[in-house]
C-alpha cells in the first residue's frame, strides 16, 4: 500500500511538472508576449524564492526594491509580481495590477534580542517585550533602564520601509501595537502627538539595515540590541549559526502575531500562465525553502510551527501603511 501511495505521489509530481512546463511553453508560443519567456518581478526580499523558481521552471526573473518598482518604466516587460500582500497598495503600480492571488506563504514578524539584554528589557516592560515598550526604551541608555553602562544606548535595526516590504510590515506592526490590536487605523492617527513623539523616538534609534539580523549574529549585541525582521529570515539563519552565537539570541513574537504574507499579482497585460507557475508545487516549495510557512509544505530547519498563525496578517491595510511610510520619512529625515 505504501509503495502504491508513493507511486501515486510520484505520478502526481510528474503530472504537475508537465503542467507547469506546459504553461511555460504556452507562454513562449503565444499569448500576449509572443516568443518571449514569462518574466516574474520579485520583491527584493523574495529573491531566493525567485532564484529557485528560475532554476526549477526556467522562467525569467527580475528583482526590484519597493521604490524601484514604483519608478520602473519597464513594467510592461513583466508578467507578474511576487511580493508581500501589503505592498500591492503601492499607488504607482496599483493601476497596472490585476487581482492578487490567495496568500501563498506567510511569515510572522519577530523581534530578535540578545538574551541578557532581553531579560533587562523584559523587566522594564513589565514581563513581556512589546513594541510599545521597545519604542519607549529606544535610544535610551541601558544604564537608565537597568542594564549595564557598557551596553551603551538601546540600538535597533530593521529593513528600510521605503525599499522593503518587510520593513514596511515592521513599522506597520509597531504602529498597530502602539494603538492596540483592535484599533482600526486611519491616516489621521499618525498625526497624534503622542504617537508621533513615540514613533520618532523609536525610528531615530533604528538603523535601516536589510541585513540587520545577520549583523546581529555576526557582530553580536555590540551592533544591535533589538532587531525586527521576519521569521523566514531569522529562523533559518539562527538555526545555521554556530552555537556560541545562536545561544546569545532569542526570537520573540510580539502579541498578537502579525505576518508578512506573500502573494502573486499579475500585471494586467501580462501572461496569465505565470500564475500557474508561481502557485505550482515548485512555487510552493521555493517559498517553503526560503523559510515561509506554506500550507502542506514541511518547514525548513529553524522555522517552527508555533506560534500558530492568525487568520489575517494583523497589519494595517495597504493605504494606511502608505500613510505611515510618509510619517516615517518625516521622522527620520
Amino acid at each position, binding site marked *: 500500500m505504501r509503495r502504491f501511495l508513493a507511486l501515486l505521489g510520484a505520478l502526481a509530481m510528474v503530472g504537475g511538472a508537465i503542467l507547469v512546463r506546459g504553461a511555460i511553453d504556452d507562454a513562449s508560443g503565444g499569448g500576449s508576449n509572443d516568443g518571449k519567456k514569462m518574466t516574474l518581478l520579485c520583491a527584493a526580499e523574495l529573491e531566493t524564492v525567485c532564484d529557485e523558481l528560475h532554476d526549477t521552471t526556467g522562467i525569467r526573473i527580475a528583482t526590484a526594491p519597493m521604490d524601484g518598482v514604483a519608478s520602473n518604466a519597464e513594467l510592461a516587460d513583466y508578467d507578474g509580481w511576487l511580493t508581500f500582500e501589503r505592498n500591492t497598495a503601492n499607488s504607482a503600480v496599483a493601476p497596472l495590477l490585476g487581482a492578487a492571488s490567495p496568500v501563498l506563504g506567510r511569515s510572522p514578524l519577530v523581534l530578535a534580542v540578545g538574551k541578557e539584554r532581553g531579560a533587562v528589557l523584559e523587566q522594564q516592560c513589565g514581563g513581556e517585550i512589546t513594541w510599545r515598550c521597545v519604542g519607549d526604551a529606544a535610544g535610551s541608555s541601558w544604564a537608565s533602564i537597568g542594564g549595564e553602562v*557598557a551596553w*551603551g544606548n538601546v540600538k535597533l535595526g530593521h529593513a528600510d520601509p521605503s525599499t522593503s516590504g518587510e520593513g514596511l510590515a515592521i513599522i506597520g506592526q509597531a504602529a498597530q501595537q502602539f494603538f492596540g490590536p483592535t484599533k482600526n487605523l486611519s491616516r489621521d492617527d499618525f498625526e497624534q502627538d503622542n504617537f508621533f513623539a513615540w514613533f520618532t523616538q523609536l525610528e531615530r534609534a533604528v538603523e535601516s539595515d536589510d541585513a540587520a539580523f545577520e549583523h546581529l549574529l555576526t557582530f553580536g549585541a*555590540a551592533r544591535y540590541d533589538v532587531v525586527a525582521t521576519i521569521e523566514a529570515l531569522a529562523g533559518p*539563519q539562527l538555526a545555521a549559526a554556530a552555537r556560541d552565537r545562536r545561544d546569545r539570541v532569542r526570537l520573540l513574537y510580539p502579541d498578537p502575531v502579525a505576518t508578512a504574507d506573500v502573494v502573486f499579482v499579475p500585471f494586467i497585460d501580462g501572461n496569465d500562465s505565470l500564475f500557474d507557475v508561481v502557485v505550482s508545487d515548485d512555487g510552493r516549495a521555493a517559498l517553503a525553502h526560503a523559510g515561509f510557512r506554506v500550507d502542506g509544505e514541511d518547514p525548513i530547519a529553524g522555522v517552527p510551527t508555533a506560534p500558530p498563525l492568525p487568520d489575517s496578517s494583523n497589519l494595517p491595510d495597504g493605504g494606511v501603511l502608505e500613510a505611515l511610510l510618509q510619517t516615517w520619512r518625516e521622522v527620520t529625515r
Partner: protein
Amino acid sequence: MMLRRPIAVTLAAATILGGIVLAEAPASAGSCITVDIASSPEKLVLLTELGERFAKSDEARVDGQCVAIQVQRQSSGAAEALLEADWPKPSKNGPRPVIWSPSASTWAGVLDQRRADAGKDPYVTTPGKSFMLTPLVIAMPEPMAEALGYPDTPLGFEDVLALAQDPAGWAGKGHPEWGPFKFGKTNPHFSTSGLAETVAQYYAATGKTSDLSLEDLARPEVEAYSRAVESAVVHYGDTTLTFLNNLYRSDRRGDPFGYASAVAVEEKSVVDYNRGNPDGILDPGEKPRKPRVPLVAIYPKEGTLFSDNPLMILDAPWVSNKEADAARAFSNFVTEKQNQKRVLKFGFRPGNPAVSIGAPITAANGLDPSQPQTTLEVPSPPVLAGVIDEWDQVRKKARVLLVIDVSGSMGDEADSRTGATKLDLAKRAAVAALDQFQADDEVGLRVFSTDISSDEPTDYLDLVPIGAVSDNRNDLERSIKSLVPTQGTPLYTVTQDSYQRMLDEFDATRINAVVILSDGRNEDDRNNDLQDLLKYLRGRNEGETTTPVRIFPIAYGGDADEGTLQRIAEATNAAAYSAVDPATIINVFNAVVSNF
C-alpha cells in the same frame, strides 16, 4: 625576531603607499577571467591562499570560463586615494581592481563622499560582503592596564585619554617609574585603525555614541580635548606594525613600558603580538618568542568600531559584467564555512556566523570574545571626511630635521629613460613631501657629505634652520632643488650630531625627529664606529623618562646600508624605510612623513 624581518616590514610599509606586491596568479590565469583585488595588507596572505584554492574549485567558472584571482597589497587609505583619482597609472600603481577590500567599510563612505565632492559618480554602490571582523581595541601592557583597574573595571577612551592629558602621567596611578603616558596611534589618512581611533576620540570628546556631526567637530571644547589627547602621541605612521615592533623590541630588551603605554590597534594585532609575532609575518624558519609582558585588549566601554573587511565589487567603468560575476563567485566562496575557519587562524573573527568565535580569540591571549558590548555609530561620509580634516588641525605638531645625503654616489643615474640621477628623484620626493606638513610644523634642512663645509664640523651643512613651514617653505624648496652631489658619506657623524642637535632643542609639545636619507655606507675614516653610535642612541632612548627623539632613516638605492639604517632606527624606537628602487622614493617619503 630575525634581524631581516624589520626590513621586510618596512619594505611592506613602503609598498603600502602605492607600491605593489602581487600575489602569484595560477599558471592558467592567461585564459581566465582575472579578478584583481586591492587588499589591505593584513589579509594579503589569506586572500591569496583562498584565491588559489578558489581557482582550483568548481565555483571558479563564469559562463564556462575559468576565473583567476590576483591580489595586490594596498593600504586602505592609499587605495582610497587612488580610487578617488580613478586609479591612474596602473603600470605604476598596480592593476585597476575589480574588488576593493579595505580594512573597513568606512573607507567606502570616505571614497564616495570625496568623489561626490569632486562631481564624480560613486564606485561603491552596493555594500560589500563582510569577509572577517576585528574590533578596534586599546592594547596595553597588562600591568599598565591593571593599574587602571583592568579587568574588573570597564575602561574606555575616557580613562585612557584622561591619563593622556594628565601632566602627572603614570605617577597619578602610583607608578612614577613609568613616566608620562605615551599613546601610539596611526595616521588616519592612511590607516584604518588610525581612522577608527580618531572617530572614537571625537565621540569621547563629545560624550556621544552616535550622530557625530560637523558642528560637533567644530566645537572649541572638542577641539581642545582632541588636541590634548594628540599631545600624548609618540608619533604617528602609516601602519600599526611600527608600534608593535618597537614595543616588542623594547620588551625583549627588558624595557616593556618605555616606548608606549597604549596603542590603538585591531584585536588581531594583540593575538599576533602575544604569539611573539608582532608584525604577523613569520619568516621561513623563524620561531616566535612570546613577549615578557603580554598586551591585553581594552574594549572601550563607550563602544568601538569594527574593521569588517568587506569585499566590495566596484561599480567602476573598468569592471566588466563577467568580472563582476566572477568577483561575486569569489566573494561567496570566501564566506563559505570551511573557508571562514581559516580566518580564525589569522586572528580574525569569522564574518560568517555559522562559524564560532573560538581560539585564538581567548582570555589566554588577553582577549574577550564576548566583547565589545557596544559599537559606535559610523559617522556619515561628510562627517568622516570632516574628522580627517579636523585631525590635520589638532594632531601633534612635528619638529623635523631633514638630513639628505649629497655624496658623490647620489649623482648616479636612477632612471635611464629620463637620465634623472638618484639625487634628482630624491629632491622631487622631498619637495613633494613638504606639502604633507602643516604650516605650524617646524622643519629644517641639513645636507651631508665629507668635507662639505669649510668650517668644523666639515661633514654637514645646515642649509635651512629649523622653523615653521609657513615661514621657510620656500627656502626649503629652493635649497632642496639646488642640491648637487659632492663627495663621501659621513653617515655616523651626521646621525649623531643631528640627533644631539634635536635633543638639545627638544620640544616636548612636538614629535621630535630626524629623517635621514642616505644611499650609501659610512665613508668616514674619522668616525667609523657603529657600535659607539648605537650605544649613544640607545643610551638616550631606554628607560621611561627619556626625551624621545626618533630617527627615521630612508635606505635609498641598491647600495644603501639597510642593515645599519635599520639598527639606527631601532635604537631610537622609530622605523627604517627602504627605497631600494629609487622610483619608489616619492611613496616612501610620504610614508615617512605620515609619522608626523
